[in-house]
């Protein structure tokens, strides 16, 4: 049995684990990242699962990654580049398409084809959402204060929180009206929210997509408007709400992080599943690997979701009852599927002409909010959606590294797919049937799609869980609902990246500010750990 000793051991080499690792290594600590797979990346991976094609086989587009982290970790130097989207579209059953472009005037005219009022309202909507993003942006970087604590640190931090709402000065502070708006936005359903701006169904459903991706909420569910906001608060080069492709697929992000980490003398132990966190007297001191090796460290950080951390690798008997119960009750429901498709040619859409930038970003086929809610109803009944919402894109149009010349790679994210099927659970046949069903739906909008499919990887929540380790395959490591956000994320009393076990921390998307390839939970966790170690680090983020 091998035994080794580090300052910090991080369980899981996802983008947040690697972010934490990079900052801690930058501060001069001896850090090891222990990863189950032979490769790092978690849900931000690029994998050649079909010869010649690179699949971003889990997460597929990038916007939320904090630019300060990009800069601090020198991700450009380590090979990362983000390519901005050129447009996006929803294809209609009547042969038309609804599109957004980089060109604002063109987008206006595109929307005006459906409704002049909506074309104008889109600016109103954009302004109001942008305002909310401005409120939330500084909060992403903050460790949520404990509202029940009277410690000077928490009181100061609560004051900071409040300042963003109350201040009417240059801090981006907002008035009374905006506070009302914020509270409404964080609690409303996306359908109700969009209804206040738009009259055209296609406009509403195109925008509502961002509110249901990855979540077990429907467009009529209260709280879904926040999920839309969560997807809008990212940026590409200062354009807030913009999305882009990571050149080389999402794995480029974590590859660059791993390279940055190694350049700071960090160590990665790949192919090393952790079976147990060693705890004595309520203090963690090490890890046990599947092969029996033990790793000792002063601080242990888990990048796994909160359920996996405390229900799988920490022994129940080590946990306070209330905490254990709260973790068990944490909502982390699987609702998404994914197809990765190798195409022999570019799909010809019935509506979007070849070369139109609208066809190069995210594409959708849902016709109206009712259809979207219907897709959610199917999920509640334990079935995959008969008319699923798909968020599909063909990164290889803009990224020359994803597929062989003349061929293309298509990523199809699917909402909704249950973790458990009502009619007796997932089987291999059902998985294939599910994939066929989705491809059939997409095929209705193209004249050649069915003939150009070379290979397809079909993933249900079961596969997402089995490969990435996300409980139920929930892409956010837990629902993004108000009861599980900010000082309630992941569970009340433990929102500051600490756990009831001394020296054991959390850094994954189960913690504030939540999911998406953002890196903020990882960087925030690093800041808290450094504080506890009395280590100073001066970077753009920390």
């Amino acid at each position: 049995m091998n035994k080794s000793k580090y300052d910090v051991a991080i369980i899981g080499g996802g983008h947040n684990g690697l972010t934490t690792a990079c900052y801690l290594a930058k501060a001069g600590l001896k850090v090891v990242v222990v990863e189950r797979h032979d490769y790092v990346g978690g849900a931000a991976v690029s994998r050649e699962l079909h010869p010649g094609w690179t699949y971003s086989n889990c997460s597929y587009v990038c916007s939320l990654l904090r630019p300060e982290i990009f800069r601090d970790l020198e991700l450009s130097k380590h090979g990362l580049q983000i390519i901005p989207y050129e447009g996006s579209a929803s294809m209609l059953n009547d042969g038309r398409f609804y599109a957004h472009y980089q060109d604002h005037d063109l987008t206006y005219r595109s929307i005006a084809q459906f409704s002049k009022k909506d074309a104008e309202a889109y600016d109103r909507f954009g302004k109001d959402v942008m305002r909310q993003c401005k409120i939330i942006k500084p909060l992403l970087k903050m460790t949520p204060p404990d509202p029940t604590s009277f410690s000077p640190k928490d009181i100061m931090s609560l004051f900071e929180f409040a300042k963003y709402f109350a201040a009417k000065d240059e801090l981006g502070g907002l008035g009374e009206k905006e506070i009302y708006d914020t509270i409404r936005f964080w609690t409303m359903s996306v359908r109700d929210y969009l209804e206040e701006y738009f009259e055209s169904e296609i406009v509403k459903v195109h925008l509502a997509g961002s509110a249901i991706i990855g979540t077990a909420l429907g467009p009529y569910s209260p709280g879904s408007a926040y999920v839309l906001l969560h997807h809008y608060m990212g940026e590409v080069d200062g354009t807030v709400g913009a999305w882009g492709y990571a050149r080389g697929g999402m794995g480029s992000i974590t590859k660059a992080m791993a390279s940055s980490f190694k350049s700071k003398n960090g160590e990665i132990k790949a192919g090393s599943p952790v079976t147990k966190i060693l705890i004595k007297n309520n203090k963690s001191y090490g890890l046990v690997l599947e092969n029996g090796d033990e790793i000792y460290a002063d601080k242990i950080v888990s990048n796994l979701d909160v359920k996996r951390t405390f229900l799988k690798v920490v022994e129940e008997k080590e946990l306070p009852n209330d905490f254990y119960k709260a973790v068990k009750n944490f909502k982390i429901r699987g609702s998404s599927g994914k197809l990765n498709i190798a195409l022999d040619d570019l799909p010809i859409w019935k509506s979007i002409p070849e070369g139109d930038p609208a066809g190069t970003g995210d594409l959708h086929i849902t016709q109206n909010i009712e259809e979207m809610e219907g897709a959610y109803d199917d999920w509640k009944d334990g079935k995959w959606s008969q008319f699923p919402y798909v968020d599909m894109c063909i990164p290889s149009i803009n990224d020359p590294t994803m597929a062989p010349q003349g061929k293309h790679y298509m990523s199809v994210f699917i909402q909704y797919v249950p973790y458990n099927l009502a009619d007796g659970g997932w089987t291999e046949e059902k998985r294939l049937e599910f994939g066929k069903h989705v491809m059939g739906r997409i095929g209705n909008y193209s004249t050649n799609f069915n003939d150009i499919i070379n290979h397809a990887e079909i993933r249900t929540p079961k596969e997402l869980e089995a490969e990435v380790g996300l409980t139920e395959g929930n892409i956010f490591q837990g629902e993004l609902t108000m009861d599980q956000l900010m000082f309630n994320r992941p569970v009340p009393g433990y929102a500051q990246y600490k756990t009831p076990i001394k020296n054991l921390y959390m850094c994954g998307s189960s913690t504030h500010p939540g999911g998406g390839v953002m890196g903020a939970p990882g960087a925030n966790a690093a800041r808290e750990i450094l504080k506890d170690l009395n280590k100073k680090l001066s970077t753009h983020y920390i």
Partner: protein
Amino acid sequence: MNTEKISYKKPLLETPFHKRTSEHCYANDWYRWAGYKVAKEYSSTELEYTSMRNTAGVIDITPMHKYEIKGKDAKKFINKLITKNITNIQSNQVAYGIWCNEDGMVIDDGTIFCLNENHYRIFCAERNLNWFCDTATGFNVTIEDISSSIAALAFQGPLSCKILNLLKVENIENLKPFHFDNYKLENQNVTISRTGFSGDLGYEIWCDPSQAIDVWDSLFKFNRDYKVLAAGMNSLEMVRIEAGFIQPNADFMSAEQALRPNRMRNPYELGLGWLVNLDKEYFTGKQALIRHKEKGPEKKLVGLDVEGDKPAMGSVLYDNSKKNIAKEIGIVTAAMWSPVLKSNIAIGFVNKEYYKLGSNVYAEIYHPEELDYRKIWAECKVVKKQFFNNPRRNAIPAFI
């Protein structure tokens, strides 16, 4: 609505005058205005500007937003929308007005044409369809965006009336400022209003898009004697600053578009208090405007007569002649060297201690000079925004 199928290869619309504007636009320098392509500069901004002060200039203003208001509550609707009272408006009269949100913050300004008791048109700089429709709730009124169904030219300058007269536009010299009527211009039925953005004698000509080219051509018919130029947006910007006209999203953020609430402005801050009639019965923003008026503006948009000859573009304004102890008290929103006044003029916000006419403030001007910046600390005198106001502007009959 323009029903032309949209294509990403042509993101901008062309106005009905495009055939002509593109022929005249030797500089090939275009500006985006409400999704249309209009000339920024045709050949020389200086000469285009001069035409508007010396002879006449022609500006394609088709992209301006145009809304048709019809119905038996049309006047009531407008009285709820805008801050001034138009109860006594007559047919063929034009009113200038502003509209505010419930907080009394200015959304936009525009001209309101009264066709008859139950029929009005509003012309404005920003899109307002949603705001107008929101305001129309409960009124027997229809609101339609007719922007693309009317082609429009501004014909501005001291010879504008003379040329229209030579074109046999009957009795045009007796059209009063802020009035309009239907005329025959070279066999075309057009509407002409004595309005404009130049602060000089001038007209705006409104016609069906199908007549656009003929109307355009007629204005240049006497060019051998009286040289008329097509004028671009750059020269329009110059004449409007001289006239002291303010622009949403240039001098102030429209309350509908401002992201930061503290960027919104009330009419008193913009020097537009004269457009607010607090005696009128309920209108949007009235309660807030009563409070704003009582309180008095914290800052105000004023004219500035700036020392020297370097335009104070985007300058921060200070309170003291000594830079090292000076405090920030305002900002310049528009600035230029005025050829007609031979003065360095600017429009800007100053805090309340400084908005009295005759106050002195100081602008820090970063003047680019051969790849370097000269930092100039220029004294500015607070003056009326209306820098240029020639009597010919309002003379009746107009000069022919």
